[in-house]
C-alpha cells in the first residue's frame, strides 16, 4: 500500500515539476506578453496543485496535510486572480495582443507593439 502511495505521490510530483518547467520555458519562449502569461500561469496553477497533492499523499492523514490543503486552496484562488490582474493591467495600459495586430505596416519584430 505504502509503495503504491509512494509511487503515486512521486509520479504526481514529477508531473507537477514538468508543468512548472514547461511554464518556465513558456515564459521565456512565447512570442508576446499574453501568451507568456498563459505559459507562466501553468507554473502557478497546475504545477503546484500536482506537487502539493503529491506531498499530501506522502504526509498521509495528518496536520501537515491540512496545512498543505489550505495552501492549495489559497493558491487556487490567488494565482488565477494574479494572472487576470496582470493581463488586465497590460490591456489597460495599451498593450495589444499580437494576434490581433492587423494592418500595422511595421515588420513583426518579436517585440510587443504599444498602442498609441
Amino acid at each position, binding site marked *: 500500500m505504502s509503495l503504491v502511495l509512494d509511487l503515486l505521490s512521486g509520479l504526481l510530483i514529477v508531473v507537477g515539476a514538468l508543468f512548472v518547467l514547461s511554464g518556465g520555458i513558456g515564459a521565456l519562449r512565447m512570442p508576446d506578453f499574453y501568451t507568456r502569461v498563459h505559459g507562466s500561469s501553468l507554473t502557478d496553477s497546475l504545477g503546484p496543485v500536482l506537487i502539493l497533492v503529491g506531498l499530501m499523499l506522502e504526509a498521509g492523514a495528518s496536520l501537515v496535510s491540512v496545512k498543505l490543503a489550505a495552501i492549495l486552496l*489559497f493558491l487556487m*484562488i*490567488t494565482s488565477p*486572480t494574479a494572472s*487576470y*490582474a496582470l493581463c*488586465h493591467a497590460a490591456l489597460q495600459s495599451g498593450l495589444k495582443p499580437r494576434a490581433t495586430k492587423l494592418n500595422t505596416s511595421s515588420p513583426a519584430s518579436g517585440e510587443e507593439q504599444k498602442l498609441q
Partner: protein
Amino acid sequence: MTTMLIGIFLLSLLVVTAFAIVRATELFSAVMLSGIFSLLMALNFFILDAADVALTEAAVGGGVATVLLLAALKLTPPAEAPSRGLSGLSVVVVAVTTLLMIYASFGQPSLGDPDAPAHGHVASWYIEHTPELIDIPNTVTAVLGSYRAYDTLGEAFVVLTAGIGVMFLLGGGRGKPFSRLQTGTAEGLSQHLIPKVVARILIPFILLFALFIQFHGEYSPGGGFQAGALFVAAMILFTLVRGERRALAVITPRALLLMSAGGAFLYGLVGLAGIATGGQFLEYNTLASDPIAGQHLGIILIEFGVGVTVTGVLLSIFHAFIARD
C-alpha cells in the same frame, strides 16, 4: 548536506537576482526583481532556521517595500537615464571591500559549526534559562520582548520616526497626514468583478492570520511587527479593490495617527510601569504578583504596542504616497 546544497543554490539565485536588479534600466522591473530578491532571502533565512526573520523579510521586503517602491514609482520617472559605464573609483572601493571580506571569511567558523563562539555564552544561556524565567516556547520572542526589550522599544520608535518623516515630507499636517485625494483613483478596482470577489474572500483570512500571529507569537514564529505588516497587507488589498476613499473611511487618518503614536507610547508606558511597580525600566517581573505572569503580561502588551504602531505607521506611509499626485 542537502540543506547546505539547497542553501548554496538559493544563494546563487540571490546573487544573480542582485546583479539583475543593478543592471535593469526599467525601474518597474527592478522593483519586481527586488521583490523576488526579498522572497529568496526569506527562503534562505528559513533554511537557516530563522523562521521569525523569514516571516518578517517576506512581509516587509516582499510586501511592504515593494508596495512602497511601486507607489513611489508612480510619482517619479519610470526609467533610469542611460548609464555612463562603470565608475572606476567605485569599482575599486567595492572590489577591495569584497576581497577584505572573503579574506576574513577564512578565519570564520564554518556554517553550522557547533563550537562557534557565538553559540556559547549568551545564546545558550537564553535557551537554558528561558523556560524557567519567562516560560514561553519561542525563545526569539523571549529575547525580543524581554531580555532585549529596550532594542525593541527602539525599533518601535524607528518605525514611528519613519512615519513622522513621511507624513512630514508628503503629508498635509494637522491631523491630516495625507495631502489630498485624487478623485480618479479613489474608486479603486471596484468595477472589476474578479479581484473584488477574491479580495472579499481573502481579506478576512489575512486579518485572521494577522491576529493569530500577533497573539500566538509566544508559541510560534511571529509577533507584533509581522502581524502589523500582514494587517497592513490586508488593508492595502482593501484599498486597491475598494478605493482610497473607502479605505480611509474605515480607518480615518486621525485614527492612523493615533495608532502610530499610541502603540509606541503604550510600549514606553509598560517600561515606566516597571519603574512604578518597583522594578527597573522595562522590567516585567513586577507587573504581576507572579514574575512569570508578569513577563507574559509585559510581552503581550509590548507586542500589542508594536503591532499597533506598525499598522498605523505603514498604512499612513502607504496612504501618504498614493494620495500624492
